[in-house]
């Protein structure tokens, strides 16, 4: 295995930037002989790759990278990496379109030219092996395994380039900070130490204290809330509610101005537990963060991983150049009369634990949670977001999935 410096920031030492301006984009698109329409999550994944969130990954992985990531949790170049980034396609579609190695493919999205793939390799990979290595299980009840088994029989590997820059739609536009932009903003603001908080939840005060605790623990200048915007399941909070409520905590002073920034990461959660924790750490390092907070059940699902598996994994990898703030739960203690840290509060028997699931359940019952548990401003905004973006519900419904506003829109382009 090649010895590399995994502590470099960005990961691998260079920030990937594969977004062309309109004139260059048109020229690049002209090289393409074959058009392939994309579904939404593919398009957003290309956005993350091309804007450098996944540096040093420049495209969809080839066989060597996939095999190395699955078996050794490293790219073929030697850099640590947790999750294969792949583009699956059927053998039939390859034949039908006449796709071959060496081609430049034009990806269209929303019927417009969007990106290209410089196709280096067409290959197969054992999906059961991929599932077992990445997720630690072959059970298709695991959503990441289910996704892996749903991959078609072939994969395309090669670098991607955005040739027609999409518009990020409101309300997400204000929170779109690609690594280059965010690094510049951090430098201008004078932030030298920034701790990342990964979320796919509307914040309750347990989350708020996790962030505040991480800020203390890392002696940070600021907290970067990195909201995962991607594939949703019925019953989840709608993306708009998650992003807007996190921002609201800053606007309403629960975090002082200049200490808190809300941003989005376009990514479909894989629920890969410890491996996804590694992936999250690298992505937030690429954004310019110096620390990343990891709590209980980070990126986990069901009982596939131990509650603190994402803590343990960092003992098994070299220095990633981003400090891990490993934290236990915050709970409500009626004796202390406050939300308090489980590692310090001695009232184990009296504590009243609460979770994101419980808060969702309370809101779903039409009940306003107490302000010590859920900020009233956050509650009001959750309900408002439901009315404005969720067809009357702050939770994902079939109607939301079918009719929601897209996160990105590709403008018309003549090629």
């Amino acid at each position: 295995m090649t010895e590399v410096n995994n502590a470099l920031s960005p990961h691998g030492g260079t920030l990937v930037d594969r977004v062309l301006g309109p004139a260059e984009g048109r020229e690049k698109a002209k090289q393409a002989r074959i058009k392939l329409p994309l579904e939404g999550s593919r398009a957003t994944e290309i956005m993350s790759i091309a804007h450098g969130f996944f540096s040093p990954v420049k495209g969809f992985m080839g066989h060597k990278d996939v095999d190395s990531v699955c078996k050794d949790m490293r790219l073929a170049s030697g850099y640590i990496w947790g999750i294969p980034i792949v583009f699956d396609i059927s053998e039939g579609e390859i034949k039908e379109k006449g796709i071959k190695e060496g081609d430049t493919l034009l990806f269209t999205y929303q019927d417009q030219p969007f990106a290209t793939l410089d196709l280096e390799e067409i290959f197969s990979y054992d999906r059961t092996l991929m599932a077992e290595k990445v997720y630690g299980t072959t059970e298709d009840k695991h959503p990441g395994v289910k996704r892996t088994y749903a991959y078609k029989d072939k994969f395309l590997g090669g670098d991607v380039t955005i040739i027609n820059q999409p518009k990020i739609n409101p309300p997400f536009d204000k929170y779109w900070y690609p690594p280059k932009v965010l690094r510049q903003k951090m430098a201008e603001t004078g932030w030298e130490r920034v701790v990342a908080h990964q979320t796919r939840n509307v914040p309750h005060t347990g989350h708020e204290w996790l962030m505040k605790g991480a800020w203390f623990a890392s002696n940070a200048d600021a907290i970067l809330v990195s909201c995962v915007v991607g594939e949703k399941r019925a019953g989840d909070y709608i993306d708009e509610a998650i992003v807007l409520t996190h921002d609201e905590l800053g606007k309403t002073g629960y975090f002082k101005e200049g200490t808190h920034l809300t941003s989005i990461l376009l990514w479909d959660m894989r629920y890969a537990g410890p491996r996804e924790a590694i992936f999250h750490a690298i992505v937030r390092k690429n954004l310019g963060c110096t620390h990343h907070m990891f709590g209980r059940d980070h990126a986990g699902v069901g009982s596939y991983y131990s509650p603190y598996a994402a803590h343990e994994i960092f003992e098994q990898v070299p220095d990633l150049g981003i400090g891990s703030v490993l934290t236990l739960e915050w709970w409500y203690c009626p004796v202390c009369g406050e939300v308090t840290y489980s590692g310090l509060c001695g009232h184990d028997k009296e504590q009243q634990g609460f979770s994101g699931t419980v808060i969702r359940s309370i809101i779903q019952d039409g009940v306003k949670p107490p302000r010590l548990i859920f900020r009233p401003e956050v509650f009001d905004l959750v309900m408002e977001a439901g009315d404005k973006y969720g067809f009357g519900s702050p939770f994902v419904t079939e109607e939301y999935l079918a009719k929601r506003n897209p996160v990105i829109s590709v403008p018309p382009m003549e090629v």
Partner: protein
Amino acid sequence: MAETYPINIWINEERLEKLQQAGLADMAQEAFAGLKKLPVPTNEQQRDAVLQKFPMAKYDSATTKSIELLPRDAKDRIFDLVVEKKTLDVIDAFLASTI
């Protein structure tokens, strides 16, 4: 005693009033920070039947050890059965009434 898996019905003013009118206000328990809940017990078979009939519901095994995220109309029906029958032992009746 066999383990039970409660369905927590969260108590708002309207539900509290109904419980008080039925003389059942004592059934509501403190959940946290002043919020009250009505924990309606299920046994293992009932829990599994509820989760099967309502795939959006979730058994929170990590924190509260309770069934959460049942749709509101289902919870309303369970709550109404409790008030009507003046007992928390209503899950069989609830499941029987659910197609």
